[in-house]
């Protein structure tokens, strides 16, 4: 069951009155109908609901991967919903880590290189420091010995753990996870969720995850059910 919300925790991510339409012409659908939401540092929030209710669309808007048709998004108190593509890209690099249902690792690169990829873009660390941090993160997710393996040489669970390490690489304030365990068996699902929440909590990061899995949702600090493009609770 979800833990009580820590009222004093800092708001890392906030949105108000988000609207989003998808499709064109007669196929145009009002997917989000004025969604408001906030995620606090050190807490794990699950967005649940039936397929097509707008969970993932909300997540992509919160992650600045998409632009809303109405409403506002603040990342660490900075209004980002109307900012330029370049500013949103920079914010993603610095403040947001993603974990997707499909790990989306770069197949031609090793696990270590994949984890270093966001760090290379941010460019705050030296090559040696990046390698050290990537190795440390891989060790944290239990893949310390497999850093030099190509993504294709890892199992599904291992690849998703690399994706978790990659999401944490730049120490972002917000971790957004879209069905991070949706493609894994029960054992690996638990393992990946535990990793994600433990590491995020240790670093005081806000975690927002979309899931269909009630067991996973029940272990989060807060559950926000969605239906027909709106939060129902």
């Amino acid at each position: 069951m979800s833990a009580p919300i820590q009222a004093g925790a800092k708001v890392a991510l906030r949105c108000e009155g988000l609207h989003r339409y998808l499709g064109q012409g007669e196929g145009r659908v009002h997917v989000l109908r004025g969604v408001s939401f906030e995620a606090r540092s050190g807490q794990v929030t699950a967005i649940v609901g039936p397929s097509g209710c707008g969970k993932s669309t909300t997540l992509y808007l919160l992650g600045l991967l998409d632009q809303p048709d109405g409403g506002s998004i603040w990342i660490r108190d900075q209004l980002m919903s109307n900012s330029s593509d370049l500013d949103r890209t920079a914010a993603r690099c610095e403040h947001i880590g993603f974990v997707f249902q499909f790990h989306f690792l770069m197949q031609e690169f090793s696990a270590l290189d994949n984890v270093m990829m966001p760090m290379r873009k941010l460019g705050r660390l030296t090559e040696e420091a990046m390698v050290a941090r990537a190795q440390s993160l891989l060790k944290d997710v239990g893949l310390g010995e497999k850093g030099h393996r190509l993504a294709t040489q890892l199992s599904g669970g291992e690849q998703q753990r690399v994706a978790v390490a990659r999401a944490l690489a730049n120490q972002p304030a917000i971790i957004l996870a879209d069905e991070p365990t949706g493609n894994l068996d029960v054992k690996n699902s638990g393992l990946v969720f535990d990793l994600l929440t433990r590491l995020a909590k240790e670093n005081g990061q806000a975690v927002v995850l979309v899931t269909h899995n009630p067991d996973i949702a029940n272990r989060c600090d807060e559950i926000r059910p969605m239906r027909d493009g709106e939060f129902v609770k």
Partner: protein
Amino acid sequence: MSTNLRIALRFLTARKRSMLMSLAGIIFGVGFFIVTQAQTSGFEQFFIRTILGTNGAIRIEDKIQDTIFAMAAAGHDAGASKFEVRVDRSARKYIEGVEDPALLAEALRKFRNVAGVSTVVEGSVIADSSFKNDSAKVYGINLDDHLVVSDLAAQVQRGSGSLEDFRSTPQGVLLGKVLADRLQLVVGDSFTLQAGTEQRRYRVSAIYSTGVSDIDKVRIYLHLGEARSLLKKTAGASFIQVALFDRDRAPQDAVQMEEVLRHSTKSWQEREESWLQAFKALQISAALTVSTIILISGLGMFNTLAMIVIEKTKEIAILRSMGYTRRDISRIFIWLGAIVLVIGTIGGWGLGAGVTYGVSKMPIRIRGIFSADSFQVSWNIWHYVVATVTAAVVVMTAAVIPARRAARLEPGDIIRGTSQ
């Protein structure tokens, strides 16, 4: 190494076979571009060397006859209002030959670019050996002057007599190889030359070969004084042949000389315009033909990169989600094109240089406008530069379009599409 380049290097192996085919196309395109340009310009340069070695860089002949207008313009008093009447070149009239060659030669030597001047007296004769007779043209020269303005020394082949014999023999002649063969004359033989009613006997001092059959079958070199006597041209000259330090400046020098010396003056470029244009047309035609190989490789490259963009949409989306900008994505694909371009160009240079060297050793017998026994090639850095620029334009154009497409991809759309 930049991250974008690092990613591009890994993406390079995504479609190995088609990428290798594109690369091979660029190598062959660049290589054959270089080879064809080396050959066409090689033969052109050889032709130019031949014509400079026979007829010189500039030839000054008939005196320009001043027209009434020109005389009026020339007759103005100092201080009076000056005006100039230019007469259309095609409407000009000329007085045949050079009236005072010594004065003209002295004036010519004052031009900075002039390396040598040779006065020539020319006339038609009948050459008669014991075997047969043939029409020919006598060129009366001062040997030392003429050696400066031509390649006559090199044109006298080993075993075909010597210029020293000619120099020391007043009745000696230098005979073109084709004419010597026709008259069945060898070095040391004597024969007669008949000009009008005058008939004299001469001895073959040497046989020369310019490789230009039109010259070798008619031209006979005599000492200037001997030619004047035979042709009864005691004064003046038929033309003055000029050698230049910088042959490429011949057209400008010719214009200046004509203005100053008031004699018809023709540069080698003007004299041989039709042949030079033929070489230029051949060169451009070869470049265009071979460029199609590069163009087709570019199309292959475009296709390969477009396929990589389609195959790598997920990777592009994840890179964008990690904070890689549209410009970063674009640069990754530009790098892909650049890597193939660099490898292809360097490979093409190697292939081009190797084949050019091989071709230069291939035997081929050419006689007519020049004489060559092997393929002529020209080693010119510009062939490599132009091939590289052509490949760069084609390959980078082929890379830019998929790169822009990749940059335009919306990460949200891709991830949403993959997740559904």
